[in-house]
């Protein structure tokens, strides 16, 4: 089977417009999450990681599309891969895409919101020849996009996959999570005993995958797996058995052993149920001694982009041999405690795990390695 190399990557977030800028901010312990008063989005103040209102406000492309354009452009440039030809596919990941347009006009026509139409515009802008693939699978969209790209490359259907994802925070999304009582009234605290919900976040990220050895930058997407809890559409499994199974299957797929895993980048949304389930799954997998963090305290929950952003931060952690502290964590608040990183940890990393779960009972895990 073809190996899958990481040829380039990018993160666009309130931290900055490339991976390096993002990682510098994270190392300084900064956060994108802030208190916002934006009457157009919420009747009351809220905590989230948002771009300034004037950013990404071109009239040609939607905000969602501009985020992706910015991210894809930088990742492609870094990779040196040209999108033309039948061997390179664009994979676009999002939960809500252009749904932010409904905030301004509740009658926005379907063709203006359409994710496939946005993907086609992006593909044209960068001159991709292959038709784009669009993944919309709740909060595992980013990881599922990476796994899809990896599998298409392994099967020899493509040589390169440009996997990109973004979500824009809108009144639509804020009100929805608010209606679930899922929003934290302050900064979110993943895995902490006082955790009280999520912060939402905006961002885009792109990872360029390739089977061609000339694009081997020293990091690989080694394996991945997806599962469903078959339990509840808006709450995670009570046991974590399914996420545990996904972790084990992703390791098997990667040909990696549990003892190889030096770090886990968790989903860690800071809701009571998610963090509890994830801790159970990681413990059940026998990985509770492995250092973990959640990046939600820095980025908020970036939904369809989360899996990509957090995988790319993990790649950067591997490059720099540095595990970031889990912002917002002070005291353990899950029944099966994890080894949550509380300070910058300098350590060589060769194999890491990234997990995610989402509405609809979906779970995903990928193995990243040198």
């Amino acid at each position, binding site marked *: 089977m073809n190996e899958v190399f990481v040829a380039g990557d990018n993160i666009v977030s309130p931290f900055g417009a490339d991976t390096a800028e993002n990682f510098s901010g994270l190392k300084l312990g900064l956060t994108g999450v802030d208190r916002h008063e934006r009457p157009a989005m919420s009747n009351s103040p809220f905590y989230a990681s948002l771009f300034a209102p004037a950013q990404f406000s071109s009239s040609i492309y939607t905000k969602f599309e501009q985020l992706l354009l910015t991210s894809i452009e930088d990742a492609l440039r870094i990779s040196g891969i040209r999108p033309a030809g039948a061997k390179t596919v664009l994979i676009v990941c999002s*939960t*809500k*895409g252009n*749904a932010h347009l*409904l905030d301004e006009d*509740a009658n926005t026509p*379907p063709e203006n*919101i*359409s*994710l*496939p*139409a946005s*993907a*086609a515009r992006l593909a044209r802008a960068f001159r991709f020849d292959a038709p784009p*693939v*669009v*993944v*919309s*699978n*709740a909060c595992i969209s980013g990881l*599922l996009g990476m796994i*899809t790209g990896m*599998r*298409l490359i*392994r*099967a020899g*259907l493509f040589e390169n996959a440009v996997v990109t994802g973004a979500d824009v925070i809108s*009144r*639509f999304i804020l*009100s*929805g999570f*608010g*209606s*679930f009582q899922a929003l934290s009234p302050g900064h979110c605290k993943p895995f902490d005993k006082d955790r009280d919900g999520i912060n939402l976040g905006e961002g885009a990220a792109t990872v360029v995958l390739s089977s061609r050895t000339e694009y081997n930058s020293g990091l690989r997407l080694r394996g991945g*797996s*997806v*599962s*469903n*809890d*078959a*339990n*509840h*559409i*808006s709450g995670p499994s009570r046991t974590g058995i*399914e996420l545990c*199974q996904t972790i084990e*299957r992703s390791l098997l797929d990667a040909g990696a052993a549990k003892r190889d895993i030096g770090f886990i980048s968790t989903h860690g949304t800071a809701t009571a149920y998610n963090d509890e389930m994830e801790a159970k799954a990681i413990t059940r997998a026998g990985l509770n001694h492995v250092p973990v963090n959640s990046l939600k305290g820095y980025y908020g929950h970036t939904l369809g982009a989360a899996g990509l952003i957090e995988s790319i931060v993990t790649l950067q952690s591997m490059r720099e041999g540095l595990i970031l502290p889990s912002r917002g964590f002070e005291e353990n608040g899950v029944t099966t405690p994890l080894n949550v990183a509380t300070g910058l940890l300098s350590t060589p990393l060769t194999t890491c795990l990234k997990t995610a779960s*989402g*509405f*609809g*009972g*979906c779970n995903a895990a990928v193995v990243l390695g040198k």
Partner: protein
Amino acid sequence: MIKSMEHITASCVIGEGAVYRNGKLLFATPRPPAPPAPAAANPTAFLLSAYRHFDLQYPKFYKMDPLSRLGWITTELLLGPGWDTSIYRPEDIAIVLSNAHSSLDTDYRYNETIRDIPSPSVFVYTLPNIMIGEISIRHGIKGESAFFLSPSFDPLLLAGYTRLLLRQGIANAAIVGWVDVLGDEYKAALFLIEKTKDTDTPDFSPERMQAIFQNPTKPWM
């Protein structure tokens, strides 16, 4: 020795007020003599009449949005009472679905609730993969899943991805296809894909999927 190959071991198509399984018409609303709009023109009314016609018993059905109802009922009839899920492990059955309009039908409806009181029970359906969750819960399926969006039914992508799951040993069976709802428009075409030595079911190919999608009464073999 005959090798096990991927076959379409069942298909179910729902659209324009009719339900087809394996090339046979199972149910249709009576042709309306004249306008006003027939029940067939409205997915909610038609799916409810199909639910009653097939005497399905699943109270959660009433909580679902039209998209999940369509996906759920199509899967119910696809698998029928005859499909024995116990021959597969729950984690070895994959669900690969797609549509053009994501959850937009419910997005508009949820957006209307925001001004008043945002409804969590509507918001949860503003993701297309919730339908995969509903189907997984109903049948205890815990395997691989994916939701793709395409401008139109894309059997090349669906067959390509599903084949890869079956051939790379990621799944042993798969429920694959299209479930789309927007306003009064609705269409579902789901396929059960299994590896079998049985030769009296159609081979699994994008061409065969397209043919069944377009003409569900075409002879099964």
